């Protein structure tokens, strides 16, 4: 699957779509495919202040537990309740309906450590 070019990526396989001071975060198609059937997601509470690269939750498949890391710093404004109820949505549409958290207070200029779609595609191909 091609990586959407409207967002950034981390080496830990999260994506972040930044729009001004707001951002949406999820895990990539590669991440969901590697994990397999996702059965549980644990997300931060709305209002939580996230630090870049710090663990903010977990995604669990039948056999595996995987941390989610914050691609950027920001404050959680919303979590995807539909994914908490039906974690398989992350498998079904990781870049869309399977998003995990929305953030505010994001510094759009600071993309330190993030990969663009082409760089992330290269990373995935090397794995």
């Amino acid at each position, binding site marked *: 699957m091609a990586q959407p070019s409207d967002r950034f990526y981390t080496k830990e396989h999260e994506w972040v779509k930044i729009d001004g001071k707001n951002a949406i975060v999820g895990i990539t198609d590669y991440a969901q495919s590697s994990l397999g059937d996702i059965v549980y997601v644990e997300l931060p509470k709305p209002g939580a202040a996230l630090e870049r690269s710090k663990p903010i939750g977990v995604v669990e498949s*039948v056999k595996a537990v995987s941390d989610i890391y914050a691609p950027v710093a920001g404050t959680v404004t919303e979590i995807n309740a539909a994914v908490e109820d039906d974690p398989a949505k992350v498998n079904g549409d990781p870049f869309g309906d399977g998003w995990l958290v929305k953030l505010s207070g994001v510094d759009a200029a600071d993309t330190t450590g993030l990969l663009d779609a082409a760089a992330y595609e290269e990373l995935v191909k090397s794995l």
Partner: protein
Amino acid sequence: MLTKPRETALYQAHLRLGAKMSPFGGFLMPIVYSSILEEHDAVRHAVGLFDLSHMAQFVASGDAVAAWLDGLSANEVASMRPNQARYNIFTNTAGGAHDDVIVYRLDGRWLIVANAANTAKVWELLRSSQPPGVRLEDRTAHSALLALQGPKAVALLQTLVDANLSKIRYYYAADAAVAGVRAEIARTGYTGEDGFEVFVPASAAMQLWERLLVDGRPFGLRPAGLGARDVLRLEAGMPLYGHELDEDITPLQAGLQWVVKFDKQFTGKAALEAQRTEDSYDRIAGLVMEGKAPARAGYAVRMDGEPAGEIRSGSPAPALGGKNVATALVRKAAATPGTRLEVEIRGKYHPATVVPMPFYKRPK
């Protein structure tokens, strides 16, 4: 000891099917082909096909085999009937388990199927105690093991064998030709479903595997990996060596009282008698989690705010509507069905209830 993982005779078939391969017990094994949940579903409702060629296969023959194995193991061997299979445990002097195995009494020989991870240990145990007149062979490298498990397994296999499978009862075996391949077939398994395990020469394994994939289509057959197998066995309350049973966890602690025959002599019997008499040992309990967070091996368990033990296996159980189930090794007082416990998951305590095992029983 680090050695390159071996490949089973079906390795190329797994690659062709797009399996995720991982080292397991010294072999590169298929963990999942497409989806653990879909493979689990096929086994519970249709039929799953497993490659279990990583498991150790030891063949012993000679008049003294039964008496010898009886001395090494908790369950009875000498009383086995021709073509019977029996679950057994090789015990250490403290009553712990070297391994759990299935012993098959076949025509003129005994087959011992051991866990892949314990191949070297069991071989050493057998070699070091082998009596005069007993011949012993490790045929693992030359013999493949395929399993057909699920409510359609018997019907599918019946289309490929001459023998009448309805005459082979649960935990019995027979020599048979399967699609023209010389085989030993046994009505055994590790999923909680009906089905057969099929031993064939490694050289014939690929041909049989491909045939089963094709002929299995109308039966809803899917290849199933070790990921699904672990979920299936946990639902069915079957122990996994290294989790519910190991050198330090005895069969009594694992809830396998029925396996231990105190009216014969065997390694570790005295220790197990003492443990049975004292009855204060930690034991394996079945847990159902109340919340959505899965319990995983190693998580701490507490009762009334006090440490009570730890999770040994844990998984969502699709057969229970996705509820999270687990086994835990806990204090005796915490093991009674109905007891409320808490499992520590990432620093938070999640409620769980002790339930009788198995979690899942197949409909009759």
